[in-house]
């Protein structure tokens, strides 16, 4: 029985049915198909929600092992597990006993720990960006020189001091942004969309199997 359940044809059939149920109602107006599609979408939400539990279990198991063998930075694992449990327990949707989003501990942790940490991580991108720009913006080749010049012009375009000093930066920046930049972006978007369609067709034909446990070679 377990061998039958592990057959690669099963996930392929599920993929084909789910894909068709999402694509077909977009183009055709057949109520039963639409109803089936809605049901599948509800299942999808349920599966995704249940998978959060997998995340919590995996996280606990991984960090517990690190704590057990006192591996590198094991105290961070203690913090991770403690805060995960605190957030799960205090965030349980039972407002009658004071739990949920309005719980004081949950609210404090969310506003004073999670949000500032997230903001910090986001803001340090500026420093990473500067370091990458310093390393990459060198006129080593024609392409690199074009990137360097365009980058410098865009910096000037975005710096009020520079546009005040020479207003010519504004039309140049606008042109770079709306002509070569836009053309490149559109080419990437069209190419990506076509690539995604080809991937979907390969998946529908059961040819794209890389994401199915190594193509079922087991």
């Amino acid at each position, binding site marked *: 029985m377990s061998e039958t359940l592990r057959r690669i044809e099963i996930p392929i059939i599920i993929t084909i049915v789910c894909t068709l149920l999402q694509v077909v109602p977009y183009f055709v107006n057949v109520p039963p198909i639409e109803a089936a599609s809605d049901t599948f979408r509800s299942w999808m939400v349920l599966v995704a929600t249940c998978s959060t539990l997998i995340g919590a279990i*995996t996280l606990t198991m991984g960090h517990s092992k690190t704590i057990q063998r006192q591996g590198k930075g094991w105290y961070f694992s203690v913090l991770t597990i403690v805060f995960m449990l605190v957030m799960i327990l205090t965030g349980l949707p039972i407002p009658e006993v004071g739990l949920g989003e309005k719980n004081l501990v949950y609210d404090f942790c969310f506003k004073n720990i999670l949000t500032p940490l997230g903001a910090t991580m986001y803001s340090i991108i500026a420093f990473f960006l500067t370091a990458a720009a310093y390393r990459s913006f060198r006129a080593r080749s024609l392409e690199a020189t074009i990137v360097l010049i365009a980058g410098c012009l865009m910096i000037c375009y975005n710096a009020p001091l520079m546009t005040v000093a020479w207003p010519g930066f504004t039309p140049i920046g606008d042109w770079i942004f709306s002509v070569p930049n836009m053309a490149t972006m559109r080419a990437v978007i069209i190419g990506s969309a076509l690539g995604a369609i080809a991937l979907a067709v390969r998946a529908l034909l059961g040819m794209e199997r890389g994401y199915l446990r190594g193509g079922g070679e087991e």
Partner: protein
Amino acid sequence: MAILIEGRIFGLLCLLAIMLAVVYYVQRAKGGKVPKVRRVAGVDAIDEAIGRAVEMGRPVFCSHGISGMRDATYGPQTIAGLGVLDHVAKKCAEVGARLIVPVRVPSVWPVASEIVETAYKVAGKPEEFNVDDVKYLSNDQFGYSSNYLGLLMREKAGANIMVGAYWAESMQLAETGNRVGAMQISGTANQHQLAFFVVATDYCLIGEEIFAASAYVTGDPALLSSLAGQDVGRILGVILMVLGAILITMGSNVLINLLGW
């Protein structure tokens, strides 16, 4: 009541044309006619990156972005990233490199774990598979990225392969990978992140190249031929753009009406 939804018929026809083209080229490949596919330097460099990591005695990192598999726009990127992970895992199992897979979305974790486990089984080394190396980090974007950065620094990655949908964390990951001296191969179809990957990593797969990567690495003629089907869509797109420009210049709305059919 019309069965076909108005305003989407032309899109359906275009989609069918591209799908039929892909099927046609796949069937053609079965008859022995395989189109020539240009080399993708970033994909060719994967083996080199893994080999380098083995020589340095460092682990290989392979991530597939921070999106799940069910999103219509970003899901295909995750699937493409998992296709690359399949290839990387097989290579790592073959040469005995330690593979670390950072995961953000819980529903993707079992898929990634199965891919890596199967790769080790196929290589005849199931005992070398360590489930703890397929790491679920955090569902939070920056929780994930800070964990990933910490791992890169602590484990001293020898190679960092990132193919999938990335957002603001792309620059953080690429720069940290660079700092620890990892050879980096990146790829995304999120055009707003491409510039970061291009400047900060050694090789970058741009847009559609990530979708072609999983077909390219297998070397399977039928899969490679499906890439030629994409070109039919591209030609169709160019024809529509040129035709549209000419017709609009002439003051005709024929194409606009047709697109809205």
